[in-house]
C-alpha cells in the first residue's frame, strides 16, 4: 500500500524544478577536499623540513666551505689513511654485528612467534627490557662483566677453564658483544612482527605437500619472513654505521668508528667543514645502502607490504 503511494509521489515530482549539481560542481568539491587534505599536511611538512632537512642542508653547505670560499678540501682530506681505516672498521663492525644479530635474533624471534601469546608477551618484554635501560648503563655493565678481573673471567678461572684472563674487553670483541646486545631488539622486533603474521596454513600446506619440518622451514617459513629480516638488517646495519658510545667505551680506544672521527674533528679541531664532510659521506653511504637493498627486494617488502 505504502509502496504504491510512494511510487505515485515520485512520479508526480516536477523534475524540471530540480537543479542537479553539474560536473563542474563535483570537480570543484573534489578539488576543495584535496586542498583541505594538503593543508592538513602542511604543518607536519614544515616541521620535518625545519627539524630534519634544514640541518642536513646546512651540513652539506658547510662541507664545501672554507671561510667564504667553495672548496673540496674537506673531502680530499678524507683520503688520509686514518679515515679509510676508520671506514673499514666501521663497515667490518657493522657487518659483524648485523650477522650475529641475525644468528641470535632469528631463532629468538621464531621461538617467540611460536609460543602462546601470553608467554610471547612476556618474552618480548624481556627482549625490550634492555631498550628501556640507559645505553651507558648497559655498556658499563658489560665492562664490569668482561674486564680482566671481571665476573666472566673470574668464573672461567675459578672453574679452571683458563689460566690467564681472556681479553674480552677494550677491543673489537668487547665492542661487538656490547653492540650486539644493544642491537638485538631492533632485529627481533621486525622479525617477530613478520613471523607472527605468517599464517600457519602455509606451513601446513608445505607439510601436506610433502615437506619435512626442516624443508618447510627453509623453503616456506624463511622466505616468508624475509620482509622482517630485511627490515631488521637495515635498521641494525644503519644504526651500527653511526654508532658512537659503545665502541668508545668498550673498544679500549682502538676501535675507531666514523662517528668518532666526526666527534674528533669537532672537538679537537673544531673543524665544522671536515666534520660536515664526514657526516655527508656517512649519510650518502647509508642512503646508498638503502637504495641498493630497495632495488634488490623492493621497498614495499621492507616496510612489510606483503
Amino acid at each position, binding site marked *: 500500500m505504502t509502496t504504491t503511494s510512494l511510487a505515485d509521489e515520485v512520479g508526480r515530482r516536477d523534475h524540471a524544478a530540480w537543479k542537479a549539481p553539474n560536473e563542474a560542481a563535483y570537480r570543484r568539491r573534489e578539488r576543495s577536499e584535496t586542498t583541505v587534505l594538503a593543508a592538513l599536511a602542511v604543518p607536519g611538512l614544515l616541521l620535518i623540513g625545519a627539524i630534519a632537512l634544514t640541518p642536513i642542508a646546512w651540513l652539506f653547505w658547510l662541507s664545501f666551505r672554507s671561510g667564504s670560499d667553495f672548496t673540496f678540501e674537506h673531502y680530499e682530506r678524507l683520503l688520509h689513511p686514518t679515515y679509510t681505516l676508520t671506514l673499514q672498521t666501521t663497515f667490518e663492525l657493522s657487518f659483524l654485528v648485523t650477522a650475529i644479530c641475525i644468528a641470535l635474533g632469528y631463532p629468538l624471534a621464531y621461538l617467540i612467534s611460536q609460543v602462546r601469546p601470553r608467554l610471547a608477551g612476556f618474552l618480548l618484554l624481556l627482549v625490550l627490557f634492555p631498550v628501556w635501560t640507559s645505553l651507558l648503563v648497559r655498556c658499563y655493565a658489560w665492562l664490569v662483566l668482561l674486564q*680482566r678481573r671481571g665476573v666472566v673471567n673470574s668464573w672461567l678461572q675459578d672453574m679452571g677453564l683458563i689460566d690467564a684472563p681472556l681479553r674480552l674487553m677494550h677491543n673489537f670483541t668487547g665492542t661487538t658483544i656490547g653492540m650486539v646486545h644493544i642491537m638485538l631488539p631492533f632485529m627481533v622486533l621486525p622479525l617477530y612482527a613478520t613471523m607472527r603474521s605468517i599464517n600457519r596454513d602455509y606451513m601446513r600446506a608445505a607439510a601436506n605437500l610433502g615437506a619435512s619440518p626442516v624443508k618447510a622451514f627453509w623453503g616456506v617459513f624463511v622466505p616468508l619472513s624475509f620482509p622482517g629480516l630485511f627490515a631488521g638488517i637495515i635498521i641494525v646495519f644503519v644504526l651500527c654505521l653511526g654508532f658512537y658510545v659503545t665502541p668508545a667505551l668498550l673498544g679500549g680506544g682502538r676501535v675507531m668508528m666514523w662517528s668518532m672521527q666526526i666527534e674528533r674533528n669537532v672537538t679537537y679541531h673544531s673543524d665544522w667543514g671536515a666534520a660536515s664532510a664526514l657526516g655527508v659521506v656517512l649519510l650518502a653511504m647509508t642512503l646508498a645502502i638503502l637504495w641498493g637493498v630497495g632495488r634488490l627486494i623492493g621497498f614495499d617488502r621492507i616496510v612489510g607490504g606483503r
Partner: protein
Amino acid sequence: MMGKCGGAISLVCTALLLAAPQAAAQEKKTLTISSWGGAFQKAQKEAWFGIVEKELNVVIKEDNTSGIADVRTQVASGKPTWDLTTQGAYSCALLEKEGRLEKFDAETMKALTDIPTTIGRSEHCAPQIVYSVAIGWRDKAYPGKVPEGWAALWDVKNFPGQRSIRKHPIYALEMALIADGVPMDKLYPLDVERAFKKLEQLKPHVLVWWSSGAQSAQVLKDGEVDMVAAWNGRIQALENEPEGKGGKIKTTFNQQIIVSDSWMIPKGAPNKELAMKAIAIMSRPEVNARISNYINYAPSNTKSYDTGVIPKEKLPNLPNSPENFGKGFVQDNSWWVNNADAMVKRFDAFLQR
C-alpha cells in the same frame, strides 16, 4: 622628585629614598662563567666565585663547557653568552691564534705578573691552575720497585703488564721521546718520526687508550691495567679512595708533563671589563692559593706558595710546589698549536693499524 618632597609627605619620600639602594642591589650585574662542571667547578665556586661576587658586587651565573668547540661556536655566533670560560692552556693558545679571544687590558696583565709565561700566560690566556701528566701504577704489580720515569712505561721486562695512555698524541709524543733518551729540556721541536717509532713499541702493551680522565682512573682502579699515564689529580684521588680490585695505587712526579688550565674571555663577551676584573681577583696569590684546599690542583701563581694559605702537608701532592716543579717540564703549547691537526690524524691512523 626631590622638589615635590616636603611637609606631610616627606616621610613617604624618605622611605622611597631609603628603598632606592636596595632596588639597585637587585639589579646587580651578572657574570656568566663556564667551567668543566663536577668537583672542579664546585671547588672553583668555593675557592674563588664567592670572593669575586662580593668584591665586584655581581652575581655569577655558572654554565658548563665540554671543550674548545663551545668557545668557537659561541664566538662564531657573534653573541657569546659567556663572559669567562675555562679551557686547557693549549686550547687557549689555539683560540688566541684564531683570534677568538678578548685581549686583557694593562691592569689585568699587571695582576698576572707572577704567573709564569711558560705555563701559558699571554695577553689572552690567564692560567688559573696547574696539573700534570704523571705515571700511576698498582703497587701490587711491582713490589719493591718504583717506575721512576717514562722509560719505565716502555720497560715491559721490569714492569710487565697492561698500560693505558690517552687517545691523543698530545702527551704520548713527549713521553715517547723522553723514554727514548731525549732530555726534558731539549724536547721541542718534537722529533715526530722518532716519537712514533717509539710509540709503536708500546702499542701492543696498551690495553686502553683512554678518552676521559674518569676512564683512566677506572681502568687502574679495577686492575684492568697496571700502569697509566694520566692527570695527577685523577691518580691521587685513587690514592685516597678505598682500594678497588687493583689494590693500592701510587704515583710519582718524576718527569711529569706540566700543563695548565686558563681563564679566557670569548671575543664579544657581554661583560668583558668585569670578566677581566674577576680574572685579576682570582689570580691574586692569596685567592689563587685557595683552590688547593678544595681539590688536588695547584695554583698557577708562583707567589701562592708564599701566602701560607696552603697547608704544608699538601705541598708534596702539588705538581708545581717548590719541591716538585723541577722534577718535570712544562708542555710547549706553541709547538702543539701549529702541529696538533697533523699529529692527531697521524696518531689515529697509527692507532688503527
